[in-house]
Every structure is written in structure tokens, then in C-alpha cells.
């Protein structure tokens, strides 16, 4: 019985996925029949507030939040551990709480280190 609920739930998700794809596809197809189409080389220039566009937008530039992205990976993995811990907390009890506390404090030390190293300031 429960296995049926499990299977049916994912059939539901598949139905939603199909509908989510169908709406934009139908809407854009119907739109193609209705909307005007008068191509013009000036129309298809890149918009830069009225100034003639210069350079390509795809240039090398300084992604300032590179270090934030590294921190994100670390803390996202941490949440992966926090979720099952929280679900099973009733069975695990105080011992698991202390263990999780040690794990999180170690990551917090990392966060404080990054903080002191001025990684968290947007320069």
C-alpha cells in the first residue's frame, strides 16, 4: 500500500513536470502565430541604454564572490548532514547532539577564520 503511494507520488511529480514544460511550449507556439515579425538589424543590436554597444559582454572579469562560492559548498554539505540528523534526532538523543555540536563548531571556526581573513568583505 505504502509503496503505491510512493510510486504514485512520483507519477504526480512527472505529471507536473510535463505540464510545466507544456505551458511555455504551447504559449510560445501560439504566440508565434499571433505576434508580428519584422526583423531589422538595428532592432537586434544589444541594448546598452541607447549608446552604441561596444565590446562583447563575455569578457573576463573578477567574480568577486568566488570565495563565497567555496564557503557555500562547505556549508551546503554540512546541511546535508544536518537534515538526516534532525529527522532521526528522537532515536539518537543527547549523544548525537554533542557530536553534531562538535562538527558544527569546527565549521564555525572555519567561518570565523574566513571572517578574520576578510574573505566575507565584498571588496
Amino acid at each position, binding site marked *: 500500500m505504502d509503496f503505491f503511494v510512493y510510486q504514485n507520488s512520483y507519477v*504526480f511529480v512527472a505529471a507536473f513536470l*510535463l505540464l*510545466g514544460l507544456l505551458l511555455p511550449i504551447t504559449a510560445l507556439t501560439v504566440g508565434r502565430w499571433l*505576434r508580428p515579425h519584422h526583423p531589422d538589424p538595428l*532592432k*537586434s543590436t544589444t541594448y*546598452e541604454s541607447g549608446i552604441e554597444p561596444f565590446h562583447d559582454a563575455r569578457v573576463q572579469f573578477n567574480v568577486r564572490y568566488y570565495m563565497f562560492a567555496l564557503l557555500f559548498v562547505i556549508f551546503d554539505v554540512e546541511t546535508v548532514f*544536518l537534515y538526516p540528523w534532525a529527522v532521526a534526532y528522537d532515536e539518537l538523543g543527547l549523544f548525537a*547532539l554533542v557530536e553534531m555540536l562538535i562538527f558544527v563548531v569546527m565549521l564555525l571556526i572555519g567561518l570565523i577564520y574566513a571572517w578574520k581573513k576578510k574573505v566575507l568583505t565584498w571588496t
Partner: protein
Amino acid sequence: MSWIDQLLQSPPGWSNFLTFMALGSMMLTITLGFVTYAILAERKIMGAMQLRHGPNQVGGRFGLLQTVADILKLLLKEDIRPAHADRALFIIAPILTYVPAFLVIAVLPFTEAFHFADIGIGLLYYIAISGLSTIGIVTAGWASNNKYALMGGMRAAAQMISYEIPLVMSVVGIILFTGSLNLIDIVNAQESLAFIFLQPIAFLIFFIAGTAELNRTPFDLPEAESELVAGYHVEYSGFRFAFFMLSEYVYLFAISALITILFLGGWHDPIPYLELDGPGLGAIWFSLKFIGVVFLFIWVRVSFPRLRADQLMEFGWKVLLPVALANIFVSAVIKEFFF
């Protein structure tokens, strides 16, 4: 046992799939209706708060057909694609943004009888799928080959990585108290007391991080009008633009429903011990709480100015993250000694 529950327990097959498609289409219509009137409500409320009228011409005194007219106008607009844009990615991006927005609705339970998928990992599913929309936004920014759009897309990614973590961590307290990720179980656990009273800090963090995930003011940096014109969707016109708009408001629907489910007790009556849980009343309680949350989002949008990019990042990492972590352990200790 409700009709949908019986359907879920029947052996899966094509007939089930077709019924689910019909239910999904109904939900699609509901969300489209919500989006239409949420936009109108937002404009009306913003108007009232700024001492002006808001839309009052199309469709009677209250402008009831204003958004419908706007959508029809967008449908008839020419589709302009910049010459230097990456054609395939430019076309895929709005779809990539919209599909996850609709997919997350599949796990939200609205009343005891009216819910769709009953997944054990409902909350995790919501968080995982909703994160995918950012890929669509970054794709749009990159594919447009426009400097404003690229900046907007990059900001969206920066914002997502900073606010996803406090958002995800704030709900750990609720999982601790419920012992389940299933959203139906979470609502059932709030029969006597809504989690907003047990987890007020988590609610605040979730609300702030949720606003950031929605890219709404004060966190609307990816599309900041005054600096990036329209951010990641500058180059989009017509219905492709409409799909970015649509996914933004479908997310507003989804996250307001999620806040109702997680913190406000879903379909249970707001004042426990009054025994106001009659049949059909669940839908009314849910709608009232839901409308309250949507109003709160609109109110916040009218009240706050936009943050600067550096303030945004520092607030996420230096304030929200430590507070969310502390909240988890305070909740665990409370649960250990008082429950």
C-alpha cells in the same frame, strides 16, 4: 479518507497518470489565476500605501482586468532576439526558470483532503527543486550577451549561494520537532501549536531568506531597475519575458504556501482548543493565513529600499548564518529537556 488519498493508494498506471494530469492542469489554472490577481493586488496595495489609486481603468473601478490585458499585450508583442545572443540558451532560459517554479507545487498540501504528491522528503524536494531556477536566471544573463544581463545573472547566483544556506538551516529546527520531512506530517504536528510560536527566530530567518530567494525588494539586485535597467531579462521581450515574471509570482505562491505549512499550521484553526476544525473549514483557514503571508511580502516590498550588493552578502554570512546555526542548537536543547 479523501479521494486523492484513495487515488494515491491505488496501483499506479496510465489512468492514474491521466487523472494526475487533470489535477495538475487544475492546479496550473489556480496558479495562473493567483498570479493574475496577485499582481493586481500588489499594484493596488502599493498604490494605497503610496497614496495613489493604482490600476482603475481596465475592468471596472478596481481594474480587475488590468493584468489580463497586460498578458494579452505581451502575447502580441514581437519577439526580439539580439544578434549576438546564444540562440539555443536564450530560448531555453525562461523555460528553465519556470519549470522548477511549477514543479515545487506538487508537494504542497493545501488541506487535509487536497494535496498532490505525498513524498517522505517533501521539504528537501522543495528546496532542491527551487534552487534550480537560479540556473535559468544565470543562463538568461549569459545567453543575452549583454552587460546588464550578465551582471544581473551573476548577482542572482551570488544571492542564491548566500541565502540558500540560512533558508535551509532555519527549517532544521522544525524537522527536529517533527522528526519528518513530509510536509503533511509537519502540518499534523502543529495541531495544538503552530511552529511560529516554537520557532520565531526560524520564521524570521526563513522569511528574510525567502524574500531574497524570490528576488523581491529589498533583495531585488538581479533586476535592479535603477542600475541594471532590468537585470537578467533586459533583452527579453513579449512572452519570453512573461515567463520570467510568471515564475517569480509562482514562487511567491509556493513560498507563501510553504510558510503557511511550516510555520502557521497549514489547515488547522489559528486558535487551538476552539475545535474549529470542521470539514471545509481547513480550506478557509489555509487561505486566510496564505493571504496574510502574501500581504506581508507586498508590505515588505513597499517599505524597504534596496540593499547594496556588499551589504547583502555580509548580512547573509555574518548575521543570518550564525543566527540560524545557533537556532538549531537552542531548538535541540529545548527539545531534549522540555519535550
